[in-house]
């Protein structure tokens, strides 16, 4: 280090004794250095002289603030960091306790929706499950009745699961969402959840006569996956119920499956109502047919059709028309009696006018009787024979891919690269979006912690 660089420190007396002596000797021998030293001293003196001295004010105010500090919440928290940290943890815990039911119900709702449970039933299901020792038999409306449907018609689908000490179930219609639920009249015996988890479907089927093709295990909520064959049973014989089912099955050969389905219908005393087969080079071979089978064998038919291949989807609905049937029947009896009265009156008629008038009335009554008889016949037919719509899709054949020769003129590397880049960008945006959503949703957890950390860091910096 040169003498000049230490000259200022020498003038200020900030050098070590040895270095100061060294510099002093150098200055003594060099008039230029002496001149610089003199200039530095003069400069320092002038700087001090020119500087304004601030007049000291405000000491009383500071003393007052020191003696009587205002207790501010943040100041108090800053002074009591451990308490603040504890309060923060308690707040987070309380928030978690408050929000937990919401999260758990939403999670359960997602699960139930995933097994084709109607979303508006999810909350009800959650409520049922929270009842300790409660039954796990939950009637679930499968389909809303169409606007033009006959009055007093009840739709039903039901799901069976285990439940400790399940009481016997009595048919109790419940109105949910403007429609009636139907609870079957057969008795449900106790079926502990733990036992049901081992092989619930088989166990359940043995006990309640339910059909099952694949042995679906019960899920965590105690509800079996909704395969109609496993959850559907024949309704009580004294009720008039129209049963309909839709099932989509993936099979190796649609033609053979179609024939098989027809044979199933025939063997059960039913018949094939209509069918179609579509073989096209451009699409997967597809067959569809509608079969009618006796109502009490509906479950069996469904099970056997599902066994033809891999079930892709299924949906079973039921419509209780018992009340409608009874109303129509009663009305028919009344009209028959009325017609008989008119016949009697006709026999006793004296004038042409009376005869014409009575005949006219009798004709109207007979028309109504005919109409009601048709309705009764239709209801009887529909409830006696269930309808099953079956869709067969052919399983795509998996074979070695034959490499296609590319035409050099059709080299699409640029397009492929562009498409890949666009896809990558989209994925990146999706990823970022998911991250933002996660951050937002988890804000109640990390935000208070981040705020506390930020606050204490700020206080620490301020305090120096």
């Amino acid at each position, binding site marked *: 280090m040169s003498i000049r660089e230490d000259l200022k420190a020498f003038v200020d007396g900030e050098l070590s004794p040895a270095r100061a002596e060294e510099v002093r000797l150098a200055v003594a021998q060099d008039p230029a250095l002496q001149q610089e030293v003199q200039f530095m001293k003069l400069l320092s003196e002038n700087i001090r002289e020119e*500087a304004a001295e601030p007049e000291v004010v405000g000491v009383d105010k500071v003393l007052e603030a020191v003696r009587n500090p205002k207790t501010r919440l943040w100041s108090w928290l800053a002074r009591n960091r451990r308490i603040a940290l504890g309060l923060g943890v308690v707040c987070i815990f309380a928030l978690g306790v408050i929000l937990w039911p919401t999260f758990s119900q939403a999670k359960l709702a997602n699960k139930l929706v995933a097994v084709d449970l109607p979303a508006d039933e999810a909350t009800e299901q959650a409520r049922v499950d929270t009842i300790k020792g409660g039954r796990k038999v939950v009637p679930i409306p499968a389909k809303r009745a169409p606007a033009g449907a006959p009055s007093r018609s009840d739709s039903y689908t039901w799901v069976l699961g285990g439940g400790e000490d399940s009481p016997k179930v009595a048919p109790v219609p419940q109105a949910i969402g403007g429609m009636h639920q139907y609870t079957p009249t057969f008795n449900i015996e106790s079926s502990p959840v733990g036992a049901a988890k081992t092989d619930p479907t088989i166990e359940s089927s043995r006990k309640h006569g339910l059909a099952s093709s694949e042995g679906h295990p019960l899920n965590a909520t105690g509800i079996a996956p909704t395969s109609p064959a496993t959850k559907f049973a024949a309704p009580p014989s004294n009720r008039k119920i129209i049963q309909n089912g839709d099932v989509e099955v993936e099979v190796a050969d649609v033609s053979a499956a179609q024939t098989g389905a027809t044979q199933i219908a025939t063997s059960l005393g039913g018949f094939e109502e209509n069918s179609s087969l579509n073989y096209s080079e451009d699409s997967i071979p597809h067959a569809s047919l509608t079969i009618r089978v006796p109502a009490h064998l509906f479950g069996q038919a469904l099970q056997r059709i599902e066994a033809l291949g891999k079930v892709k989807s299924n949906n079973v609905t039921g419509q209780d028309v018992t009340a409608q049937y009874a109303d129509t029947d009663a009305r028919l009896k009344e009209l028959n009696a009325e017609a008989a009265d008119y016949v009697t009156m006709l026999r006793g008629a004296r004038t042409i006018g009376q005869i014409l008038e009575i005949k006219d009335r009798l004709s109207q009554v007979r028309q109504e009787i005919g109409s009601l008889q048709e309705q009764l016949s239709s209801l009887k037919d529909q409830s006696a024979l269930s309808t099953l719509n079956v869709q067969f899709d052919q399983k795509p054949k998996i074979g070695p891919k034959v490499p296609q020769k590319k035409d050099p003129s059709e080299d699409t590397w640029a397009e492929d690269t562009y498409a890949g880049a666009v896809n990558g960008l989209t994925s990146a945006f999706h990823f970022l979006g998911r991250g933002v959503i996660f951050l937002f949703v988890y804000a109640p957890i990390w935000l208070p912690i981040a705020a506390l950390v930020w606050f204490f860091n700020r206080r620490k910096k301020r305090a120096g």
Partner: protein
Amino acid sequence: MEAQITRASCGDREALAEIVVEYYPAVYRFCARRVGPELGQDAAQETFLAAQKVLSRYDGTSTLLTFLLGVAHNQCRNLARKNRMEISFDSVWPTGSTEDVEQRAIDRHELNRALRCLSLEHREAVVMHEIEGLTYDEIAAVLKVPSGTVKSRLHHAFLALRQKLAPSGEVSE
């Protein structure tokens, strides 16, 4: 003073008040030179309130004044940032307010101009050493920089001043 420091760090307000009485002028002037007289009061007050919380960390390796000025330095910076202003030391050397006709070796207006041309770090070092009278080690403790850095800053500050103020303009490095 050690007893007051110990008591003040334990929350004794009277002990802190005694420290305020003793050190307020130096702390206030330090703050006023940086953020002006009005904000200087706030900065000084915040300095003592903050010092009460961090006095327990004072280990006695430096003087209490140095410790307090270190706190004040941070308070001034925070206050300046909060008020969107820059610490410039403009109020240290007021311009054009005096009619001094006395001939000096160094022209005062030239000196003012030269001082304002210094960088903030150099000006800060000059103010702390020449006006506030802090040693190199004390400045280093307040600014939390090595002592050698303070020496270097002062050397270069005076070199720059000499370049601007020397009559001949010939300054050798």
